[in-house]
């Protein structure tokens, strides 16, 4: 079917050229939309449900969010339907005021700073760990499949379950980690109660959660590199480091480019780890952009929908800029991504 549509696109384009070249008596070129509808009605009919569903579940909230970010909506002035009472919306359009406030105030920038530290350290360390483990597991070692199973385990457990488990482990007085340390004669560590330790703790949990994905993706990449290349390199006298540097790394390029992009977007918006572990605390030490946006919308009172949407739109813009820049860089290096 893909081939068929491809052909008809080419054919339609050809027809259009001909039509324009010959210039009919009316002097008006036929509507491109109507022509494409009559030629491709079947394809349009097939994609219509998907377009409609995406429009409803992605498009509407997105447009609504952007709209709210341009108003002063909060829970006191939005529309409310309570039983028979109907309270109409009274919020007003304020233009770009919310964006100006967010970008000039200290809160957005300081939260963004920590979000970047969090994202870079999580993605960087997860990638390095995943790559190391993938290389180890790519060899023939005893019990390889058992190791693989165990390493995928964090992925198999639902995220919130493992985060709650970690929260118990981290508990300062009753947690397993501090009991273990006490056994070794080490003082209790305030895992989640000290701002610096809390930052360390949330990063550690996110790495623990993220390694299996990296591992599986990179292992797949490693197995697609032909063994002959390593043999040939070995014949030519290349050492292990040279083989890794010049065969493994280039061979993994396309896989690692994708997993780093995905992992960056996921980590940047990693709501459950922060929210369930520290709720952004102590104070606001581990608050990332998305948990702060949630806080505006659901935790403070009166709930500030406008500011929350503003932060949401800013997050979207930041990630889009990142994706575009990342793609450019890769393309410049010769990747057809």
């Amino acid at each position, binding site marked *: 079917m893909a081939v068929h549509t491809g052909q008809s696109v080419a054919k339609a384009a050809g027809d259009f050229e001909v039509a324009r070249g010959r210039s009919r008596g009316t002097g008006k070129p036929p509507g491109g939309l109507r022509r494409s509808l009559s030629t491709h009605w079947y394809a349009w009919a097939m994609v219509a449900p998907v377009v409609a569903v995406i429009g409803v579940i992605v498009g509407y909230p997105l447009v609504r969010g952007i709209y709210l970010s341009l108003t002063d909506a909060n829970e006191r002035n939005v529309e409310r339907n309570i039983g028979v*009472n109907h309270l109409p919306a009274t919020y007003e359009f304020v233009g770009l005021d919310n964006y100006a406030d967010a970008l000039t105030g200290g809160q957005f920038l300081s939260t963004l700073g920590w979000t970047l530290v969090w994202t870079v350290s999580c993605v960087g360390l997860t990638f390095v760990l995943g790559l190391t483990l993938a290389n180890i597991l790519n060899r023939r070692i005893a019990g390889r499949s058992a190791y693989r199973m165990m390493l995928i385990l964090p992925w198999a457990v639902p995220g919130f379950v493992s985060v709650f488990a970690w929260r118990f482990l981290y508990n300062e007085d009753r947690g397993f980690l501090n009991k273990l340390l006490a056994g070794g004669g080490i003082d209790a560590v305030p895992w989640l*109660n000290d701002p610096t330790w809390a930052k360390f703790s949330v990063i550690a949990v996110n790495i623990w959660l993220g390694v299996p994905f990296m591992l599986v993706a990179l292992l797949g990449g490693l197995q697609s590199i032909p063994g002959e290349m390593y043999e040939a390199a070995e014949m030519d006298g290349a050492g292990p480091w040279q083989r890794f540097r010049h065969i493994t790394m280039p061979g993994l390029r396309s896989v690692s480019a994708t997993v780093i992009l995905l992992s960056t977007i996921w980590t940047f918006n990693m709501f459950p780890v922060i929210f369930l572990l520290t709720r952004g605390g102590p104070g606001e030490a581990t608050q990332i952009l998305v948990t702060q946006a949630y806080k505006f919308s659901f935790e403070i009172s009166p709930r500030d929908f406008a500011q929350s949407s503003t932060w949401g739109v800013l997050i979207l813009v930041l990630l889009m800029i990142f994706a575009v820049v990342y793609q450019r860089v890769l393309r410049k290096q010769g990747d057809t991504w």
Partner: protein
Amino acid sequence: MRRGITATALVATLALAATACGGDEESSGKSGSGELEGTVTWWDTSTVGSEDKVFKKLAEDFEAKHKGVDVKYVNVPFGEAQNKFKNAAQSGSGAPDVIRSEVAWTPEFADLGYLAPLDGTAALKDEKDFVPQAAASTKYDDKTYAVPQVIDSLGIFYNKKLFKDAGVEVPTTIAELKTVSKAVKDRTGKTGMYLRGDDAYWFLSFLYGEGGDLVDAKDKTVTVDSPAGVKAMEVVKDLVDSGAAKTDATDGWENMQAAFKEGDVAMMINGPWAIADTYAGPQFKDKANLGVAPVPAGSAGQGAPQGGHNLAVYAGSKNLDASYAFIEYMSSAESQARITTELNLLPTRTSVYSRPEVAKNEIVGFFKPVVDKAIERPWIPETGSLFAPLVTEYTKVLTGQTTPEKGVRTTGDSYRELLKGWK
């Protein structure tokens, strides 16, 4: 767990909506014969494992009395209930019929239009009997939006055995609290006190003790960043820094109860709602081991906040009549007496205090005078919004991320943003 509760509430509401569609008689909550019927979904916020059992039992007794009414009991964690109710109430789906609303939430919910006025309904029986302090938070804009369920305040809970081992007496001032803590540490190796660091309600008695307050509603002034506010932050910070008290930035309630019940700390500041749970701890198998005393005084005197819970009806409820009847039953003198006997919670009806089983209750005997002179917060819609900005700064001060001065100043700034036009 959150999802579970939402799902339950949703299912309950769907069931409710389905039954309510049956006809006009049903949607009013009364059948042709005048009998109440239908479903009443109740969001309770009491402590799971101790308080909830008694409230659930009361709800079942109500069902037995009104055969046609089905009470759906849902326990929503106290810390989440305020926002959960606002979310559900605003969208109009998934909201309960009856909510156990904390005193500071009630004017806020009423102001947002989420609560049904109760004046002249069956819910408000013997209105004059309610303790005036308890009834104050149920009034908003000259209407009554809730019925007081329990009233409370804060006191200092102490482990008598640990105090005896350390050879100390109950502290009456902050300075004494520090020496007592030190003696406990030196002689028993236990920590003196547990201080909630993740909930700013526990900061109030220190703030009042220095003569401060969050806001002054009469003069429309924000007072949290006054010198008294700074002093109060310094006091709590010093308690934690000097090791007299320990604290946590997360899971404070669980950690506090666990530490006190197991005898790892000798004191905690808490209210009557913690009594039932505390008695369940290994240290308090002998209930006489638990001592309760007024909160230690600061430099300006002794002060504890007045708190409590009300029962309110959601304005969008499909079953108002049954909800009114349910609230009336839950806040009746008989029910309150039972709650007091089983849970040591303080009744909100004057007549209940003179009942013999309540009059001889030691906890009530202690807390009643405390409540009588407890400091009442202004019952304005924003009172329920004052803790969110404060707790962030409070935790920051305790974990050394900001200074007491900066902490209260930031809090004051957010209050002025919240209370438009206040000084």
